[in-house]
Each structure stands twice: as structure tokens, then as C-alpha cells.
């Protein structure tokens, strides 16, 4: 069976279809799930929160989307060790929801940045990076205005000690603390990143490096039993 991935569609998401396209290109059974749904589809193996501007980015990026009806199901899914990946706005939502540490703040330059960047893979022993080598450089585009990851110094120290910093920019584009581009939760089943791997799965479009991350996720789905989602 193909790995089943639910891509959540919020009002204002705009990378949802690209995420489905990229995941399908890599062999997944990926489909869109509307934010107002109360439950994830049966046998969901992973959830992707895509990029965009959910709820117009009002108040703070991700602050309103975290209360969307589907987020209860996503939170339960994550608590049962289900794999959850947040990309850009999805990363912001996971931080606001408390599923990932820290917060994304406006870029230090106050400019919207849209270009390819190089990121370094800090760990390869995670469900999101297993196809990479530690220290491997990936070229993946970013496109955001609020991408500067921040956390208080004591929290950063804890995250470092527990190996929760998963990706770092080679050349910090946005003022992120310690050049952090992607983090994981303590249990290791939730990851968020600002770069867009779904826009980099075909060398024809500049880089295929995003496929390392998405294919790692699909490998992990194939290896683990699906999480029952109707336990509530």
C-alpha cells in the first residue's frame, strides 16, 4: 500500500496542491483534508501542514489556524506518535499550537525573501532526514516574511542538548536564532521547517533536494504501522 499522507488545507493555504503533487510524485497516496473536518482520513500515515497564509496571517502567523477544527485531530495524531511535518506556514502553526518549540518572527530585514538557500542537515537519524547524511547540504527555496525562528536562550540550550535542531541555514537569510531552519519535537515525530521541500523535488525546477526530506518521511510511514485515528 502507498503511504497515505493527509495535507491539511486551511483558508489561505497556497502550497497545499504543490505538497500533494510532490508527495504523489514520490509515491505517496496524498490527498487534501479541509481544515473544518473533525477527523483525519482512516489509515493516515503522516500529516503535512503546508505553506501559505492561513487566515490571512492575522494577529500572528499560525495563531488562528491552530484553533481550526482539524487541529484537534492533528494534535491527537501527534500525541499517538503519528508523523507530522509543517512547512513554512505549517511550521508557524505547529509552533503556535505548542507542538513544536519556539516561534517564527518577522525577518530581520522586514523583507519578503524568495530564493534558493542552502541548509545543513544536523541529524539523519530522524523520520524526516533518514535519506540524508549528517552535515549534508540541501538546496531548497524559502519564500516567507516571518521566518526568523526564535526561542529563549534556556530553551535553545535544551533543544541543542536533546538534538532537536534538525536543519540550519548555511548563510542565515532571515535572522533566525542560531541559523535554525528546522526543528523537531522531543519525541521526534513532529518536524517543522521554513524551506519548501515540496518546491524542490524535480531538478527541472532548480533542485531536487527537497525529495530527500519528503522521501524520508514516506519511508518512515511505510516502516511504521498506521496510527488509529478514531480513538477519541
Amino acid at each position, binding site marked *: 500500500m502507498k503511504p497515505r499522507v493527509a495535507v491539511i488545507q486551511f483558508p489561505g493555504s497556497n502550497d497545499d496542491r504543490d505538497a500533494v503533487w510532490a508527495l504523489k510524485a514520490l509515491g505517496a497516496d496524498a490527498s487534501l483534508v479541509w481544515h473544518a473536518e473533525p477527523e483525519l482520513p482512516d489509515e493516515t500515515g503522516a500529516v503535512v501542514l503546508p505553506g501559505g497564509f492561513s487566515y490571512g496571517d492575522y494577529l500572528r502567523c499560525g495563531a488562528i489556524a491552530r484553533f481550526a477544527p482539524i487541529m484537534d485531530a492533528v494534535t491527537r495524531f501527534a500525541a499517538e506518535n503519528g508523523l507530522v511535518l509543517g512547512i513554512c506556514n505549517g511550521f508557524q502553526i505547529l509552533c503556535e499550537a505548542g507542538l513544536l518549540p519556539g*516561534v517564527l518572527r518577522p525577518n530581520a530585514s522586514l523583507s519578503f525573501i524568495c530564493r534558493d538557500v542552502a541548509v545543513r542537515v544536523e541529524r539523519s537519524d530522524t523520520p524526516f532526514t533518514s535519506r540524508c547524511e549528517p552535515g549534508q547540504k540541501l538546496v531548497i527555496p524559502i519564500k516567507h516574511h516571518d521566518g526568523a525562528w526564535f*526561542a529563549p536562550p534556556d530553551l535553545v540550550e535544551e533543544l541543542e542538548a536533546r538534538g532537536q535542531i534538525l536543519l540550519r541555514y548555511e548563510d542565515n537569510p532571515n535572522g533566525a536564532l542560531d541559523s535554525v531552519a528546522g526543528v523537531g519535537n522531543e519525541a521526534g515525530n513532529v518536524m517543522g521547517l521554513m524551506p519548501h521541500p515540496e518546491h524542490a523535488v524535480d531538478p527541472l525546477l532548480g533542485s531536487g533536494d527537497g525529495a530527500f526530506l519528503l522521501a524520508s518521511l514516506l519511508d518512515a510511514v511505510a516502516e511504521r504501522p498506521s496510527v488509529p485515528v478514531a480513538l477519541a
Partner: protein
Amino acid sequence: MRATVLVRPKEGILDPQGQAVEQSLRKLGFAVGHARVGRVVDFEVEAESAEEARERVDEMCRQLLANPLIESYEVEVQG
């Protein structure tokens, strides 16, 4: 009752918006420093007393209106 919530970037948190505003004010010839840009949220809240309203608004701030990692807030209740 009328509630006003003032949300500010916490002390020590880099505030690029504040810096940009400060630079613009300086270009206009105003001698300003340490500019910070926050947010105001005004709304009506149903409550029996000002104290109850304040508690409710405080809860709103913790759940939604402010992110405690980077923002502090003040609540004013009138009426």
C-alpha cells in the same frame, strides 16, 4: 464592558518594525530612540464586574492574543 489589550514585543526581543519606524522618525528630524511597535486589540466583553472581565481578557491573552515567548501584554477594562 470595553476592554483594551496592549501587546508589546518583550524587552530584549529584536523588533525590526520598531527599528524601521525609529529610523523614519529620525529622518524626519525627530530625536527618538528605542521605538517599539506593538498591537492594540479593542473589544466588548460580557462580564458582571470589571474584575471578572479582566480575568476573562487575561485568559484570552494567554490563549490567543499574545505569544508569551516574545510578547508581553497589558489589559485595561472600562465601563
